[in-house]
C-alpha cells in the first residue's frame, strides 16, 4: 500500500479492539457454557474496546465527519464495522454493569457474545478487497479466532485458575487451524520482484511465524506448564504482531505496479533469451 505511515493508528485500533472484543466473547462463552463469570475480564474488555474506538478516529483525515461513516451501512464493509463497534461496546458495557451489580444473565451474555463476535468478523471483512492479494481467504476470520484465543488465554492466565482450560484449548486450536490456512495462502502467493508489497512480504515467514508462536503456541505452553499472567502478556504481544504483520503484508495492485511487473517479466525473459543464445550460438 501507498501509506506505510498511515498504518500506525490502524494497527493500534485493531489490536485494542480485537483484544478487548476477544475478552468479552471469551467471558460470555464462560457464562453461557459454564455459568461462570469473571467480572474483571469484562471490565478490561470493555475498556480496551473503548480505547480502540477512540484511537480509530485518529486515522481519519476529517475527524469531525466521523459520523458520516454510518451512511454506507449494508453496502460498505467499513460502515458495517463502524456500526458494530459501538453496538458491541454497548452490549459489553451492559453485561459488565449487570455483572457488577449482581444481576448477570445468560441471555445477556449470549447477546453480548454474539454481537461482539460479529464485530470481530466485521473487522476481518473490511480488508477483503479485490486488489489485495494477501488479504484474501482466511484472513477475514483471523481477527475473530485470534481475538477469542487471546480472550480465553487472558482470562485463564489472570484468573488464577478461575477460567476453564478446556475453553482455552478449544479456541487456541481453532485459531491455530484458521491461521495455518492463512499462512498456507500467503506462502503460495507468487510475488514478482517489482511488486507493490512493502519490505514485509520478503519476511512473510518470520512475521507469520512470530504471530503464531506469540499468540497460540507460547501462551498455551505457559498455561499448561506454569500458569502465570505472563501468558496474557505474551498473547497480547501476539495480537499486536498479528496486526503489524497483517498490514506489513499488504500487496496492493496499482497500474504503476502492473507496469513494473510487466517490465520485470520482459527483462527476465530477455535475459533468459540472451543466456540461451550465448550458450547455444548455433540456435
Amino acid at each position, binding site marked *: *500500500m*501507498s*501509506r506505510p505511515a*498511515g498504518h500506525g493508528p490502524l494497527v493500534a485500533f485493531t489490536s485494542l479492539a480485537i483484544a478487548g472484543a476477544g475478552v468479552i466473547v471469551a467471558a460470555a462463552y464462560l457464562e453461557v457454557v459454564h455459568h461462570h463469570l469473571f467480572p474483571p475480564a469484562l471490565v478490561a474488555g470493555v475498556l480496551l474496546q473503548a480505547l480502540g474506538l477512540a484511537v480509530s478516529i485518529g*486515522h*481519519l*483525515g*476529517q475527524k469531525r*465527519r*466521523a459520523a*458520516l*461513516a*454510518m*451512511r*454506507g451501512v449494508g*453496502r*460498505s*464493509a*467499513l*460502515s458495517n464495522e*463502524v456500526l458494530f463497534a459501538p453496538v458491541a461496546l454497548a452490549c459489553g458495557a451492559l453485561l459488565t454493569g449487570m455483572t457488577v451489580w449482581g444481576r448477570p444473565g445468560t441471555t445477556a451474555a449470549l447477546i453480548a457474545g454474539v454481537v461482539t463476535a460479529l464485530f470481530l468478523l466485521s473487522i476481518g471483512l*473490511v*480488508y477483503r*478487497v*479485490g*486488489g*489485495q492479494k494477501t488479504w484474501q481467504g482466511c484472513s477475514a476470520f483471523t481477527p475473530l479466532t485470534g481475538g477469542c484465543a487471546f480472550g480465553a488465554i487472558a482470562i485463564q492466565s489472570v484468573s488464577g485458575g478461575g477460567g476453564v482450560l478446556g475453553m482455552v484449548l478449544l479456541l487456541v486450536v481453532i485459531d491455530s487451524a484458521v491461521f495455518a490456512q492463512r499462512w498456507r495462502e500467503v506462502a503460495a502467493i507468487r510475488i514478482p520482484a517489482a511488486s507493490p508489497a512493502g519490505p514485509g512480504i520478503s519476511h512473510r515467514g518470520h512475521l507469520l511465524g512470530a504471530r503464531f508462536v506469540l499468540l497460540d503456541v507460547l501462551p498455551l505452553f505457559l498455561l499448561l506448564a506454569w500458569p502465570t499472567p505472563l501468558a496474557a502478556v505474551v498473547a497480547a504481544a501476539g495480537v499486536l504482531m498479528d496486526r503489524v504483520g497483517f498490514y506489513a503484508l499488504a500487496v*496492493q*495492485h*496499482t*497500474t*504503476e*505496479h*502492473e*507496469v513494473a511487473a*510487466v*517490465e520485470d*517479466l*520482459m*527483462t527476465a*525473459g*530477455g535475459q533468459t533469451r540472451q543466456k540461451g543464445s550465448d550458450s547455444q550460438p548455433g540456435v
Partner: protein
Amino acid sequence: MSGAGFLLDLHRCVGCGACVLACRIENGRVLATAWRRVLPLNLGRQPAGPTYFLSVACHHCEEPACLAGCPSRAYEKRPDGVVVHHEERCLGCRYCEMTCPFGTPRFDEDNGVVSKCHLCVHRVDAGLLPACVGACPTEALRYVPATAVPPADAVRFVPGFVDPAGCRPALHFRTPAGTRRVELFRHLGEALRR
C-alpha cells in the same frame, strides 16, 4: 460503452505529459496529488527498446470498487457513468485507496480528504472536452461519451493494464503499430498469458 470514458491510442501517445499538465491546471492539482499520470512501459528496460505510454486517470469503472466501499457515500455514479467524488462528504479514511485496484484516489494531506478525476464534468456538461483530451497534441487520448461506441479495433486490456478486481474500467486502448512494437506486444501478451 455503457458509460463515459477514455480511449487511449498507444500508437499515437508520445508521453509528452500535456494531459497531466492540463488536468493539473484545470483542476488545481499539485504534482503529488495529480489525478492523471503517464506511465512509460519500456519493454525489456532498454534505452533503445520500444516504449509505449499509459496515460491513466480514473477509469470511471462500471463496477467502481471505490464507490462500493466508501462508508460515507462520498462517491456517486452519474447517469452517464462518470464516477464523481464529493469531497465535502469524505472522511479521509482512505479506504478507497485500498479498494481501488488502479491506485486512482489520491489522499491530500493538507485537506485531509481524497480526490480523483471527475472527467471534467463541468466542461463536458458545457459541451467541451475534458481538459486532458483537449490538450493532447497527437489526439492519442480521446473522450468517449456514454452514448458512443468505442472503435471496433479498441481493446479493453493491454500488457501493463489489467482489471484484477472485476471493476470493468471504462478505458479502451488502440494497440501500438510498427513492426517491432507489434511483434513485442504479441510476445508480451503470450508471456503474460503463461
